[in-house]
């Protein structure tokens, strides 16, 4: 399970998280189920937060004439 979770994209993780929130809030959930939702939700929120900590270092690149990607810096004008 946890192996799969690491493969999740941020979007998938946050969508799963949202789904779990909705399921839990629906009420009428058996306690065992609620607990497992809770655990899964916590795991997903951790995944999301981890991903949010992982900022792209070399975020921007540009395609040159030959179709190769080069890193790109904004020319600050002021």
């Amino acid at each position, binding site marked *: 399970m946890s192996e799969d979770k690491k493969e999740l*994209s*941020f*979007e998938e993780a*946050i969508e799963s*998280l*949202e789904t*779990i*929130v909705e399921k*839990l*809030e629906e*009420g009428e*959930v058996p*306690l065992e189920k*609620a*607990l497992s*939702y*809770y655990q899964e*939700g*916590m795991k997903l*929120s951790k995944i*999301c*937060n981890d*991903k*949010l900590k*992982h*900022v*792209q270092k070399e*975020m*921007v*690149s*540009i*395609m040159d004439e030959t*179709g190769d*990607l080069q890193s*790109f810096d*904004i*020319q*600050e*004008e002021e």
Partner: protein
Amino acid sequence: MSDKYLTVSALTKYLKRKLEMDRHLTNVWMKGEISNFNHHSRGHMYLTLKDEGARIQSVMFAGNNRSLTFQPENGMNVLVKGQVSIFERYGQYQLYIHEMEPDGLGSLFAAFEQLKKKLDKAGYFSPLHKKQIPMYPNHIGVVTSPTGAAIRDIITTLKRRYPYTKVTIFPVIVQGEHAAPSIVSGIKQAHEQKDIELLIVGRGGGSLEDLWAFNEEEVAKAIFNASIPIISAVGHETDTTISDFVADLRAATPTSAAELAVPNFLDVQQQIDRYVHRIQRALLSTIQQKEHQIRQLDQSYLFRFPDQLTRQKEQHVDQLDMRMKHEAQNALHRSKRVFSNLLQQLNKVHPEVQLKDHLFHFKQTMKQLESSMKQRVEHEERTFTSLLDKLMLLNPLEVMKRGFAIPYDHNNTFVTSVQQMHPDDDVFVDVQDGTLHCVVKQVEEKKHV
């Protein structure tokens, strides 16, 4: 003398020939604003071209205006090519327009409107074709000029809001005649990168001419046919291009395109925190709800008085037991009653009883017989005595004792009438103690009979 005087027609014809021989007037290039435009039903266009200082009556025949790529309108500035001549009937000089095209901005507006209409009809702007913009794109492509404000605005905004996405710039020419094909090939290049999830296509502000590439049909088609969702970002708020209509999402400026492309990471973090909070609250409320259920169950009658459960059952069992015994007894009684009834019936038909009955009956019958016999005998005796008495009364001997006699003749026939007798007839008279042999002396008949 009258030869000195020209006719109106002659003068007009002369003037006309003069004008038509002038090489400048037969090939006029002119610009002006259209007014009094009238497209006649036969197909000719009549209009006045004017500027601030003058006006000229103009006509464009159907044969020429058929090839126009735009619809002339009042107020439109146009460039025309034609010939000046005279309409003889009215003595009016006018411009015969052979070619006409919109002047400057007017031309671009017309082309814009025409392409917009065409693409709208073809369904390019339909919401049905709009693709969903991903919420959290991992890789964004930017098709724009690598220099200038637009790319700077886009990248700083993306970095500031959501520094988790990869950005790849596809540098293109964004103005001039090479712009459109360059933009088209930039979009194509972006599609060759496998993992790009969202494209921003645009440029910064500029004049209508500067932005013109984004009103070109080939750019519109490239955007329409793209499989990656595209946010268009051309110029400023007020600029609207064909690309904006075709794109899946229109941003007013490059900065706002970047804002539409990614969420703010602070918002995302807050959102995650809210989710966590909601999960915790939901779990808590689930637990509280279960606790409440447990408490309720706990307080329920049966849990408070668990004995009651078995007591009731015991009572029930007892009741059943009693009912069973009662029923058994009833059944026994019923059987006994049936048995005794049968026994009674059986006893009734016992031979001894029958014999007794018969004997009794027989005795009774005998008794009856005896008594009836006795009655009968007595009756007979009584009858006999009475008959005897009657007989005694009737006995003639008894009567003769009292003095009565019985006369009869020699034939032993009783004499009951004087008619039977004649004088001297013998008559025998029996009396009580013998017979008198007599002779009739006289016959006297009683008169009163």
